[in-house]
C-alpha cells in the first residue's frame, strides 16, 4: 500500500452539504463549444515555438541532416571528386608534405579536369577536407542516430517491461541493468572496439560505411541501461496512476493498456532523452575514432580530428574544422533537447 492517500478536504458538515445539494441544478456546465480542443502535441508545439534557441537548433540539425545525406552527393557532383579521392601531386600536397590550403585548384588525375579544394586538403593524401567534413557528418549522424535508436529500443523495451510487469521480470532486468552499469564503460568500449571491432567491421548491410555498425552494436550493447532505468521509473509511476487502474478495471488487455495508456506517456521522455543521447554519441564516436579504434579510412570527424595534430602547427585549420563541427552539432542537439524538455514539461528545472 504504497499509495499515499489524498489530502482530506475539510468537511463543513451536513448543513453545508445540504445547502450545496439545494444549490445544485444539474444544468449546463461550462460554455457550449463545438470546436475540437487543442491536442497535447499542439500545446507542446506552441510552447516549443516560443523557444527561439531550440527552434534554431532544430533548424540547424535539419540542415545538417540535409547536408549530410542530400548535400554531400550534390557537393561531390559539383566539385567533381569524392571524399576518398586522392590528390597526390602538388599543389594538393606540397613538396614539404603539407596539405593544400583552402581554395586550391588541383588537377583530377582520373578526369583530367581542374577541381577545387574548398577547405584545402585534409592530409598528405590530398583528400578534400570539405567533402570529408560533410561526409563525416553523415557517419557521425549515422553512428549517433542508430546507436541512440538501438539504445532506446533495448532500453525502452527492457525498462518498460520491467516497470510494467514487475515481479521476477523486473528483478532480472534490474539486476542486468545494474551489472551493465557497473562495467567501466569507456574502457570497455575501447577494448571491445579494438578487439572484436575488426571482425564486426565487415558487416555493412550494403548501405553503411564500414565500422558504423560496429560502433552502433557496441554502443547499444553497453548504453541501454540508462534509458532502461529512466523508462522503468516512468512506467512504474504511470502504472500506479488511477487511469491505468481504471483501464484494468474495465477489462482492458495488457496490450491495450500499454498501447493506449502507457506508451503515449513515454513519448516525451523518449524524445527528450534521445536528443541528448545523440549529442553524447557524436562525442563518443569522435573520441573513439580519435583514439584509432572507431571508424577507419572512411571520413569521420574523429578521424579528421586525429589527423589534425599531425599538422597542427603548420595547418591549424585542419584541427579547427572537425572540432567546430563536433561542437556545433553537439551544441545543437543539447539545446534542442533542453528546449524539448521545457516544451514537454514546463515545470521541469534546468536539470
Amino acid at each position, binding site marked *: 500500500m504504497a499509495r499515499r492517500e489524498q489530502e482530506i478536504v475539510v468537511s463543513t458538515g451536513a448543513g453545508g452539504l445540504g445547502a450545496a445539494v439545494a444549490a445544485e441544478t444539474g444544468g449546463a456546465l461550462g460554455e457550449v463549444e463545438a470546436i475540437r480542443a487543442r491536442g497535447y502535441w499542439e500545446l507542446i508545439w506552441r510552447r516549443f515555438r516560443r523557444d527561439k534557441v531550440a527552434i534554431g537548433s532544430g533548424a540547424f540539425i535539419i540542415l545538417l541532416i540535409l547536408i549530410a545525406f542530400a548535400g554531400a552527393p550534390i557537393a561531390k557532383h559539383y566539385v567533381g571528386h569524392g571524399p*576518398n*579521392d*586522392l590528390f*597526390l*601531386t602538388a599543389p594538393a*600536397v606540397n*613538396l*614539404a*608534405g*603539407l596539405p593544400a590550403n583552402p581554395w586550391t585548384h588541383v588537377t583530377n*588525375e*582520373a578526369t583530367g579536369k581542374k577541381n577545387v579544394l574548398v577547405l584545402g586538403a585534409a*592530409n*598528405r*593524401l590530398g583528400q578534400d577536407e570539405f567533402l570529408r567534413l560533410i561526409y563525416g557528418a553523415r557517419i557521425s549522424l549515422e553512428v549517433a542516430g542508430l546507436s541512440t535508436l538501438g539504445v532506446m529500443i533495448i532500453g525502452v523495451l527492457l525498462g518498460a517491461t520491467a516497470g510494467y510487469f514487475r515481479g521476477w521480470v523486473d528483478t532480472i532486468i534490474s539486476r542486468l541493468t545494474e551489472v551493465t552499469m557497473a562495467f567501466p564503460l569507456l574502457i570497455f568500449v575501447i577494448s571491445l572496439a579494438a578487439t572484436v571491432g*575488426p571482425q564486426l567491421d565487415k558487416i555493412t548491410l550494403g548501405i553503411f560505411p564500414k565500422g558504423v555498425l560496429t560502433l552502433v552494436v557496441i554502443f547499444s550493447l553497453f548504453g541501454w541501461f540508462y534509458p532502461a532505468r529512466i523508462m522503468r521509473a516512468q512506467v512504474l509511476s504511470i502504472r500506479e496512476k488511477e487511469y491505468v487502474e481504471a483501464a484494468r478495471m474495465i477489462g482492458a488487455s495488457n496490450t491495450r493498456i500499454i498501447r493506449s495508456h502507457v506508451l503515449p506517456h513515454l513519448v516525451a521522455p523518449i524524445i527528450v532523452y534521445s536528443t541528448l543521447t545523440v549529442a553524447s554519441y557524436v562525442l563518443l564516436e569522435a573520441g573513439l575514432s580519435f583514439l*584509432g579504434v572507431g571508424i*577507419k*579510412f572512411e571520413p569521420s570527424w574523429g578521424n579528421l580530428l*586525429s*589527423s589534425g*595534430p*599531425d*599538422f*597542427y*602547427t*603548420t*595547418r591549424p585549420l585542419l584541427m579547427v574544422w572537425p572540432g567546430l563541427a563536433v561542437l556545433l552539432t553537439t551544441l545543437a542537439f543539447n539545446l534542442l533537447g533542453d528546449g524539448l524538455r521545457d516544451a514537454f514539461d514546463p515545470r521541469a528545472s534546468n536539470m
Partner: protein
Amino acid sequence: MHRRLWLSAAMLVVGASLLVAASFASAGTANHALKQGGIWKYGTEGASVQVDPQLAYITTAWWLEYATAAKLYNYPDKAGPVGTKLVPEVASKFTVSRNGKVYTFTLRKGFKFSDGAAVSAKNFKYAIDRVANKDLASPGAQFITDPSGTNIVGAKKVNDGQAQHVSGVVVKGNKLIIHLTKADGTFMAKITMPFFQATSTKLPLDKEVVTVNGSNLPSAGPYFYSRNDVNQLTSIRKNTHYSKGPGRTRPHNLAGLDVFWNQTEQTLFNQTQANQIDEDNTLPPDQVQGVANQYGKNKTRFWAKSQNCTGYLPLNMSNSLFKGNTNLRKAINYAVNRGPYVGQAGPFAGDVWTHIFNPAVPGWRNVTIYKRNLTTAKKLAKGHLKSGKITVYYRSSGTINPAQAQIVRQDLINLGFQAGNITMKGFSGGNIYTAMGVKGNDADMGVSMGWCSDYPDPYDWINILLYGPSIQADNNVNYSYMNIPKWNKKMASAAKLVGPRRLKVYSQMDIDIMKQVAPMAVTRTYNTRYLFSNRVNPKSLVFQGIYSDFSIGAMALK
C-alpha cells in the same frame, strides 16, 4: 630467424663478420675536445624495449646494449667501414682449434661491472647459459642451437630444459673455451651479438629483468642501466668502474642518457625544438622540411641517415591472381604511385626505388626499372585481372601506413579493379609479417612492408627473399612465394660464387628478376631523420653502421 623492417638491425652483425672477420681494426683514439658529463634526453614515439641483455633484440634495444655491454670482441664507436671491423675488448686474443670446433678466448683483467664486481670468464659462460635457458626464451638461443650453423655443444640440451648449464662452454682461469658441434665461419660475428656480453650472475638465470631500479642490472660496458620503467623511462648511466685500460678504450662522454618512451610525434618535436629533449628521431612529417631548411641536412641539428632497407609490396605468386600472371605483376609495378607513397612520411624519408638492392647492398646499381605510367600499366593489365577481385593486407597502425594503403588502393582502382572488389585487411604492429608468412594465406599483396639487411651480402636479399625451396608451412619471409625452378637454380649457383663475380651476378639477377618476373613492387629506400637540441654537439655524432644509429658513447653535449 626473422628479419623485418621494424626489427631492422637485429642480425646485422652476423654477415658483417662473415666478410670482415679476418681483418681487425686497431683501437680508436678518444676525442678529448668533447665536453664530459650531462644527461642526454632521448624521446621516442615507440613502446619501450626489453633491457635484459639476453632478451634485448630490436634495433633500439641493441643501440642501448651497445653502450652498456662489454663483449669478448666488439665493433668500435666509429662511422664508416672502420666501425664494422671487430676489435678485441674483454678478450685480448682468441685461438681456434685446427678442426675449427674449439674457440679459446683469453680474458683481460680490469673490466668491472657497474656494481664493482670484476668481469671473469664465468660471466660469459653465464650469458650463454641464460641465452640457452628454456624458460627465459631468449631469441638468441636460435643462434647457438642451429644444427646447420653455429651450434654450441650442450646448448640444445639446455634449450630443451634437460640441463641448466651449457656443457660446451668451459671456464679455465682467465680462459673461456667454447666447443662447437661443427666448424662455423660466422661464430665470431655471433658471439659479438649483445646476447653474449659479460653478464652479472646477479641476474636470475631463468627470469627476465624487466624493471630496473639502481643496481639490479649491472653491466661491464661504459654505461649500465640504472633505471627501467616500462613504457615510461629507461636510463643508462656511466659505469664508474669503467676505467681506462687495455680493451677499455671506448668513449663515454655523457654522464648518462634517458629514454622517454611512448611520446607523441608532435609534442616530442615541440619539446626538442624547445631544447627540453635532446634527440628526436620520429619527426612529424610536416615539420621535416621546415627544420631541414632551418638547419640544413647533416650539419647541426637536423640529420637524415640512410638505413640498409628496401620497401616493397610483395605480390603473392601462389594465389590465383598473380600466379603465372607476369603481365599484371608488371602492371602493378608501373601503376604504383611511389612518389606520394614515400612522401607520406614527409621529406627526407627515403627515395623512390624500383629494384631490390638499395645503395647499401654490395653490388647495387643506380637504375630505374619502372617509371610510373598508367597507360602502359592498363595495357599490361587488360585481360589479366582474372576474377577482378584482390585482397590486400596493410598495416593499420600509425598514420603513414594506412595512408600508403589508400594510395595503393587508388592505384589498383586506376588499374581497373572495382573499388568494391578490393578487400583491405588491416594488421596492427608487425602482425602483417606473421600473416603473410603463413603459406596459403589469402593475401594477393601486402603494403608498407620492407626488408633490412642482416649482413652486407646480396644473398640476404635474393636467396632469402625469393628462393622457392625454402618455403615452409609458416614463418616464411618469401612473401611473394616465388618458386620458379629456373631462378631457384640460378640463385643456388650464385650463392657459391665469391669475390667481384658474386656481386656482378647478383647485381644482374636483381635487375633481371625485377624486369622478367616482378615478384614484388619495390617502392622505396629508408632514412632515419633526427632532430637534436641546441645542447647537442654535432661533432660528437658518430653514425655506427652496424647498429644503424649514432653511438651513445661518442655523443657529447655542448
